[in-house]
């Protein structure tokens, strides 16, 4: 018998840790009142219209199907228009093991996406390699592309994937519309060798 039912110290995600929000310098005051308001409205709109591009390679892709299906229904978040064309999507959901052979493909897909774009690493394999600590598996996709949200689990339950989507929504909502033009963002991409 288990002593307790819940772990009451799950680590809450703090926006300050995110790649997108964290390297914004303090006192970035270039935006006036109007721009801030616009930013808010755009953020709100984007938040509710995140079209995912499922880069589903293995097990987690099956759980993504479950997330899409009637029981959990990703559509509630406005995200059911799944696209397989990187141009049209906002969120790259990397689900499943990314082997070293697949790495360049994934990178290419990321580069082809239109800004603003976000990346979610779903599951242990995509995030760190999981149990596949082997010669052929990439130990985390953050080695080749910047990742915004990591979802633990192998495979994560649909609830966990939805949780990840909501974390993405948090980022999207709080991101300034000008951010993608800043030097900080360019520096971030450059650190991954992406122009």
């Amino acid at each position, binding site marked *: 018998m288990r002593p307790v039912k819940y772990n009451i110290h799950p680590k809450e995600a703090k926006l300050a840790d995110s790649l997108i929000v964290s390297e914004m310098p303090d006192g970035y005051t270039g935006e006036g009142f109007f721009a801030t308001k616009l930013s808010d*409205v*755009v953020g*709100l*709109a*984007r*938040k*509710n*219209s995140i079209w995912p591009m499922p880069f589903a390679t293995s097990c987690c892709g099956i759980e993504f199907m479950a997330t899409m*299906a*009637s029981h959990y*229904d990703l*559509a*509630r*978040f*406005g995200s*059911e*228009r799944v*696209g*397989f*064309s990187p*141009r*049209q999507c*906002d969120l790259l959901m990397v689900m499943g093991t990314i082997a070293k052979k697949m790495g360049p493909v994934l990178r290419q897909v990321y580069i082809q996406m*239109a*800004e*603003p774009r976000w990346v979610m690493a779903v599951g242990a394999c995509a995030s760190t390699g999981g149990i596949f600590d082997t010669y052929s598996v990439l130990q985390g996709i953050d080695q080749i592309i910047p990742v915004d949200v990591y979802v633990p689990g192998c495979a994560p339950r649909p609830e966990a994937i939805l949780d990840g989507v909501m974390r993405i929504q948090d980022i999207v909502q709080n991101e300034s*519309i000008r951010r*993608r033009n800043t030097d900080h963002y360019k520096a971030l991409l450059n650190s991954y060798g992406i122009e």
Partner: protein
Amino acid sequence: MTFLTIDWLFIIEKLVLIIIIILASLGIALYTTFAERKVAAILQDRPGPNRAGPFGLLQPLADGVKMFTKEEIVPTHASKWLFILGPGLAMVASLMTCAVIPWGGSVELFDRKIDLQVADINIAVLYIFAVVSLGIYGIMIGGWASNNKFSLMAVLRAASQAISYELAMGLSLIAVLMITGTLSLNEMVKQQQEGLWNIVYQPLGFLLFFICALAECNRTPFDLPEAESELNFGYHQEYSSMKLGFYLFAEYINMIMSSAVMATLYFGGYDIPFVNDANLYASIGNWAALLQVTSILIKIVIFIFVFMWIRWTIPRFRYDQLMDLGWKKMVPLALFNMLVTAFIVLLKHNGWKF
């Protein structure tokens, strides 16, 4: 020509009408996208978008704003101007259709009798056919300019599909034209207001027309140009941002317009069923026009629902089967329908009673 001969009020009136109709079409198209998602969801036992605003009603606005603020990508090897022209053409062509559709009778404002139709031209049906064919150019140009093999294949499919099904569509329509004896949509509606709806005379013709309309709008089971499991969104695969939005919009406006055309041709247009419209005008005046507009809108909504219902139920054809159906089944059936109708019309002209 002097300025004095121009009826300025007429121009203002038409401009206002055009703006209203275009805005309304856009608005309806916006919410058709939402309706599609909701209908799909409800048919599939799930709630659908419900977190953006009350019941998710702000969902299309969110999509719109997002698309406007997304990066515009023109692929490196694409033909730049054609790439931009494609979605624009598709959008314009689909909006042009609404010029000839009679949305209602007429209203009397400021002592003027204003027809709720932008242009009551006497070749409205031909005009629609011409404009619809133009819409295909939007798809073709866009897909070709993308310099992507999937897009190219999609475009080839779209073009051949449009040609084959337009033929059957035209043939099935000729039967209606023979009955009504006019090419003006307004005139057709008037005839249907007085007599029975054309669907009663032309059930087979309507079925053929409906199937062709599905094909013209690239809706399942004829959505080969954008079959996502084969061609991965097909012709608009390389498009991002609002150019993509234009394509998606054009598709939904096409749907609305073909529903409106179907309603006008076969279901009495703005005719309110079981009510004598002339009497209605006499009793409540301008409000009757409003009721008529509501009537055609309801018909459109029903058609759109059926479009969606079909889309989320049945699988799509294969390319050769699609052609097979078009040329070997639809065209002969339409011809048959035309001949039978012609025969009956001929007999009627010669004094036979039915």
